């Protein structure tokens, strides 16, 4: 007897439909599995057998062959357990093929016959929308995010009972809890508020402009200046995700099996801060058989924070350049290639030089050679991606003790939201995405501002490439100030200052 059951596996951030074919015939009793299963899939034979037996269902004492089609693609994960079990039941005649017609199964089996959820349920459900999908109870809410028809059951025995019509399909209690899952993904610093930052008006302003315009931000300063504290406050300034981005973010986090506070849609922008020991694969993705998305994919829609930028291996940093430009990652491996969105706000922090006190002439103890060695770790093209580069200094004692707490995240986030609405009126999500060709129309300069830019261009302080970035930045500054359509001198002056200079990182000598 032959049975064919629909299921799916994950590759990258996409589900791939898999058809589980089971053949039961006379011969030496045993189970053979073919179709490039990985270790977790191969082990499912023992789980399925135990689950069937403990559910009071018969295990055929005949020769069983399981084929996972398409057989050329590697299958990873334990999500195929239920489909294999159902296939064996149909092929051995316990269930009729009609009982499973139009159904697809995703879930892992416990030895006691219980159903367990698997990571990436939303993505898997996406690949199986034309079926009625059967998942484990805890995964039902996530599976329904894909929009298809989904049902759930607590155990294998319950699945069999419902397929045969002896019991009706019913939702477990609590599925419709509206508060479930409205939290952000990877929100590592809940309760981190900008009011914790004392003084440091320049850095606060840089953070606000970065969040408003989607401008990549580099914070340069000595140890203990509060660079990390500032950067972690960024997530709280970003507005909620729009529905499409929320779906993408949820898919990526689901596919990567990242822990999320709920099972619903991720609506808060993620904030990812990989350690500088991260490998290029962990950052870009594609490391495992399932080609799990990397940190930059997980940061899609939110912020990627690279603390101690100078400590990251140069090869890892340069791998960031293509995604920063395109907003998508294409990973190609021998097993295949995947593409996933990676549009994020890059925030980085670093010391100006090895001793940490450089940047201001006369204060650095490093030799010029040590300083240029340190600066050489960052490639020019990567530094160029940072629209904003500001110096962060240690707050003064007076700031730490006497000042009132700074402005809170909520007030700043409100201004950020207003500025982003103005960008949306121009047809882009953030000003950093304004195409160069539309700048004259979207960010027209008044005469003074034009003169100022021309003077900077003539003196070589500004490159043609930097000009567009400064104009976008000035547009954001003007939006935050509530200025009209025209960009004026103060906006350009502030943008030129925020853009900073290579010298922030390279150190400088007065000669």
């Amino acid at each position, binding site marked *: 007897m032959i049975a064919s059951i629909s299921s799916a596996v994950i590759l990258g951030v996409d589900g791939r439909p898999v058809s589980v074919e089971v053949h039961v015939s006379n011969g030496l009793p045993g189970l053979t599995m073919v179709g490039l299963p990985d270790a977790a899939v191969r082990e499912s034979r023992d789980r399925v057998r135990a689950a069937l037996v403990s559910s009071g269902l018969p295990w055929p004492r005949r020769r069983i062959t399981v084929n996972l089609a398409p057989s050329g693609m590697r299958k990873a994960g334990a999500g195929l357990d239920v489909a294999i079990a159902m296939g064996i039941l149909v092929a051995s005649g316990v269930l009729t093929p009609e009982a499973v017609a139009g159904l697809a199964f995703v879930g892992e089996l416990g030895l006691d016959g219980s159903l367990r959820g698997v990571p990436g349920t939303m993505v898997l459900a996406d690949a199986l929308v034309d079926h009625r999908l059967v998942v484990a109870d805890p995964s039902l809410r996530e599976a329904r995010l894909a929009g298809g028809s989904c049902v759930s059951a607590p155990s294998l025995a319950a699945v069999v009972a419902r397929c045969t019509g002896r019991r009706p399909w019913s939702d477990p209690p609590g599925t419709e809890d509206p508060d479930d899952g409205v939290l952000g993904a990877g929100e590592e610093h809940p309760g981190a508020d900008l009011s914790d930052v004392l003084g440091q008006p320049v*850095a606060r302003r840089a953070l606000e402009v970065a969040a408003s315009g989607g401008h990549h931000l580099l914070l340069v300063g000595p140890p203990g200046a509060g660079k990390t504290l500032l950067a972690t406050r960024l997530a709280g300034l970003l507005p909620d995700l729009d529905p499409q981005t929320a779906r993408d973010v949820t898919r990526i986090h689901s596919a990567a099996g990242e822990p999320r506070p709920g099972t619903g849609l991720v609506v808060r922008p993620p904030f990812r801060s990989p350690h500088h020991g991260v490998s290029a694969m962990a950052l870009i993705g594609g490391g495992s058989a399932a080609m799990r998305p990397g940190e930059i994919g997980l940061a899609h829609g939110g912020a990627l924070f690279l603390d101690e930028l100078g400590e990251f291996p140069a090869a890892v940093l340069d791998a960031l350049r293509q995604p920063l430009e395109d907003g998508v990652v294409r990973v190609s491996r021998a097993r295949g290639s995947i593409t996933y969105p990676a549009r994020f706000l890059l925030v980085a922090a670093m010391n100006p030089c090895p001793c940490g006190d450089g940047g201001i002439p*006369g*204060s650095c103890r490093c030799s*010029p050679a040590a300083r240029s060695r340190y600066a050489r770790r960052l490639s020019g093209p990567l530094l160029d991606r940072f629209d904003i580069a*500001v*110096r962060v200094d240690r707050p003064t004692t007076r700031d730490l003790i006497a000042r009132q707490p700074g402005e809170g995240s909520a007030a700043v986030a409100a201004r950020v939201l207003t500025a982003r609405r103005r960008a949306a009126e121009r047809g882009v999500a953030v000003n950093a995405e304004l195409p160069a060709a539309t700048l004259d129309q979207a960010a027209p300069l008044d005469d003074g501002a034009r003169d100022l830019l021309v003077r900077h261009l003539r003196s070589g302080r500004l490159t043609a490439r930097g000009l567009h970035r400064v104009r976008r930045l000035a547009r954001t500054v003007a939006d935050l100030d509530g200025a009209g359509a025209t960009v004026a001198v103060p906006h350009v002056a502030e943008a030129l200052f925020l853009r900073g200079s290579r010298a922030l990182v390279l150190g400088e000598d007065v*000669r």
Partner: protein
Amino acid sequence: MTAEHPDDQACAAALVDLLGMTPVRLAKLLDGFRPTMAWSAVRAGTHPGDPGRRFAAAARSSDPVAVARRYADAGVAVLLPDRSGYPAALVGDPGAPAVLCSSGDPSVLEARPAVAVVGTRSATPYGAKVASDLGRELAAAGVVVVSGLARGIDAAAHAGALSAGNGATPPVAVVGTGLDVPYPKENRVLWDRVATTGAVLSEAALGTVARPGVFPARNRIIAALSDVVVVVESHRGGGSLYTAEAAARRSIPVCAVPGSVYSRASTGTNELLVDGCSPVRDADDVLAAVSLVRQGRGMPQASPARTPGRPRAPGPATPADRVQRSVWEAVDDTPTTVETVLLRTDLSLAALTTAGGELVELGLLTAGAGWWARA
């Protein structure tokens, strides 16, 4: 054996040029030996200063006449203590180099008083300005400005001395690398100008590259050549304090330029002042110290024609408005971060950067990466 008989100068050049030669080893080889004698003894492996015959093999494969020609072709003169051309100030000095290479004409040192203007490589705009002003005014007053052609203060002092114009006294540099290896590279032009107008001296062979140790060693020559040593800016423990120490050991007066007590670049100089060095406010303070030392021999004849510096406070026409003035008031002479100015002025960042940019264009402020300083 070569057909030509090499003279003292050629042998001295050949000795300097031997691989692995250092000033200390060279002094040992030439202690009590004429260069021709020392050369043949080293070749023969019988020199008591070279008991390990370290240089014997290298010397046998070297031709002093060819080496001398190579030095002459590079425009480098080889100076020996008992020959003319060797700076008189170094004769009898305990640390005097046994052989000194020179490109340019160091004879100006014999006629004029010399002042060393030295300091840190990571100078502040303030320090660079003081060094440049001192260099220019001292050169105009007929003083040889001696320094090391390093980054920062040294370069500013040399550039200042050269900017004093045609009638002024040319500067002299003492460097640690070979005379054909300008270091740091960005000072190449300055290096050439000092060599053409004054002189660049080195005790290293041609082709010697920068390496730790050569710079502190050349500092003793800078000190020994000078009548007065002025330290413009130095960190605590900075390299220019070697020069000050070498000067103190030779009873040469050391002066220091006072700096902000908050500036790290002035910690060393401010400590020198605490230790009793006389403070330097302008070239007149230095000239007073020089006249005490020289007491009539070869003093500059007339009072120097001082080039007036820029006025300290901006004139009534500048800055243009109240905002600019308040920004200018909030910026120190030493680099002040924009954040500090922002806290002092209570302006918005946009208004502040606008006014700051205008002040920079007016030449009233200098700008760096995230900081301003008064020009």
